[in-house]
């Protein structure tokens, strides 16, 4: 078996001089990577070319390059899809829920990480357990419904105020900050609230950044919860708006493609600047599946 594989690799790698071998291996690597990359670049390319064509031209020749590229579809989608309103809603939900989540969980994570009160370990365990429990979908709905918060902004934001993985990341990071700092601050007479906000918070910035982008991307991309909780179109986030738009203008792919690109842009820009935090957050956060 091993020998067979060796000879198989030998076909590609030659087996003459070491440098020729490694050159062939590199060529093979580029070939495989290139083939995979096609399936990542082509859908994006298709999205862009489609968005630049008038509908009539698209219907005649869906795959061809646009003969007279124009941005008219972007303007059309912006109007038809009610983009300004939906974008505002998405930004509002994302910013509000993330801010509340970060601040409230900072004050949960800090005393737990320090074990400052009895039972702090039990609370941490309860956060870990939640990762393995059944989904909360149905009872959550009953709760929001019976609180009278169905189809309201407050009810929708309420759903995003927790994130067990984010909490665990913060607890672990705070543990790496020396305890002596607390003692020094306490001896100097610093208050608890001020200490956590002005000393600890800046010190755990990398963890906060990771958790913030992780949480914010999750809210921005969410499409199931708005489908469940929001029936009033004025409250839709952009993802829900896109699905509705696609349902109404099903065959107007140029407009849909333009809308998709506009929805993608903020995420891509964010990614370019915060790549490091996003990757570390998602690999840690991938536990959620």
């Amino acid at each position, binding site marked *: 078996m091993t020998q067979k594989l060796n000879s198989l690799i030998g076909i590609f790698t030659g087996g003459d001089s070491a440098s020729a071998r490694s050159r062939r291996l590199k060529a093979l690597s580029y070939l495989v990577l290139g083939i995979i990359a096609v399936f990542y670049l082509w*859908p994006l390319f298709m999205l862009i070319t489609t968005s630049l064509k008038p509908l009539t031209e698209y219907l005649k020749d*869906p795959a061809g390059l646009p003969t007279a590229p124009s941005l008219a579809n972007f303007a059309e989608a912006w109007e038809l899809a009610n983009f300004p309103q939906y974008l505002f809603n998405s930004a509002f939900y994302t910013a509000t829920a993330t801010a509340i989540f970060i601040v409230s969980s900072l004050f949960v994570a800090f005393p737990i990480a320090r074990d400052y009160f009895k039972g702090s370990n039990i609370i941490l365990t309860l956060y870990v357990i939640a990762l393995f429990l059944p989904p909360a979908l149905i009872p959550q709905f009953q709760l929001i419904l019976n609180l009278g918060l169905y189809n309201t902004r407050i009810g929708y934001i309420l759903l995003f105020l927790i994130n067990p993985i984010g909490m665990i990341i913060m607890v672990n990071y705070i543990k790496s900050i020396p305890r002596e700092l607390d003692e020094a601050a306490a001896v100097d007479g610093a208050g608890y609230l001020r200490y956590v906000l002005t000393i600890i918070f800046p010190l755990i910035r990398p963890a906060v950044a990771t958790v913030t982008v992780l949480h914010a991307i999750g809210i921005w991309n969410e499409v199931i919860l708005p489908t469940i909780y929001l029936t009033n179109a004025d409250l839709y986030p952009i993802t829900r708006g896109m699905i509705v738009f696609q349902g109404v203008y099903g065959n107007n792919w140029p407009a849909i493609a333009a809308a998709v690109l506009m929805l993608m842009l903020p995420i891509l820009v964010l990614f370019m600047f915060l790549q490091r935090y996003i990757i570390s957050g998602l690999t840690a956060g991938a536990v959620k599946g």
Partner: protein
Amino acid sequence: MKIMRDSYLFGSGGRWQRLTPLFLLLPGVLLYFLIALGPSIATSYFSFTDATGLRGAPVNWVGLDNYKEFLFQGLASRDNIAATLRTLRFSALVTVIQFTLGLIIALLLNQKLRGRTFFRTLFFIPVILGVVIQGLMWRLFLLPRGGPMATMFGWFGLQSEFLGGQPNEAFMWVIVVQIWANVGITMVIFLSGMQTISEELYEAARIDGASNWQLFRNVTWPQLTPAINTNFLLNIVGSLQAWQLFYTLIGYKPGTQVLGYLVFAEGFGQTGSPAFRQGFAAAASIVLFFIVLIIGAAANKVVSWNEQRYM
């Protein structure tokens, strides 16, 4: 009773001042119990009721009726059982392919290649785009008439209706998109595992005349155990619970649903009938929960066996 430990030195003044951390902790923890932990546990209660989505409607205890309907009611249960088996098939295929592909990409990108950052970023980007963009992008790419994939199929004399085709065909394309969208995470986890392997191990093996395959088999693979285990578990548990791409790619189409989608569709009137069958949906999500639990535990056994072998 003393709640604060002696190591807590802030606010040595009054008793109330000493309890400040608890007051500040309360909002976060209460929210967590109210929105996540409580509802999560209550799912099992609702699975024994006939709860609907109407505000103030009575919720009656129906015992095991929902579970009976899900599993043991002959024809009526057929679709549910089919969805359960389909979930397992989806998970098995996604896990195997995504794991292997992620490993291959990571191996290729772990070499000193020009453009490796570009490739890594390219393969990772879909992960952050979310199911709406992923779904719409691939619906466009897979348009049966004039779409790029149809064109590519044409080169080989093939034809397909893709997402609009027979249930099995549509199901297969959802698997493709699911892997396309998530292989980036698998790749990144493998890559970060590979970066911790010391170069000296490779040099020593090369001096002993090891071939590329032997290097992989005897150095990379055993040293990669933690990343392998993480990816294995993540892929299994993640794919058992994944269903949102079905929603954005093909909608609730008979013969394609997986369990997660069934829960959502039954619970929130998306099956074609507008009824919110939340009791039944809760029962279905408990079934899914036990499947994840059992398979997750089994996978965990494999993982710890793998660790003993190599570490």
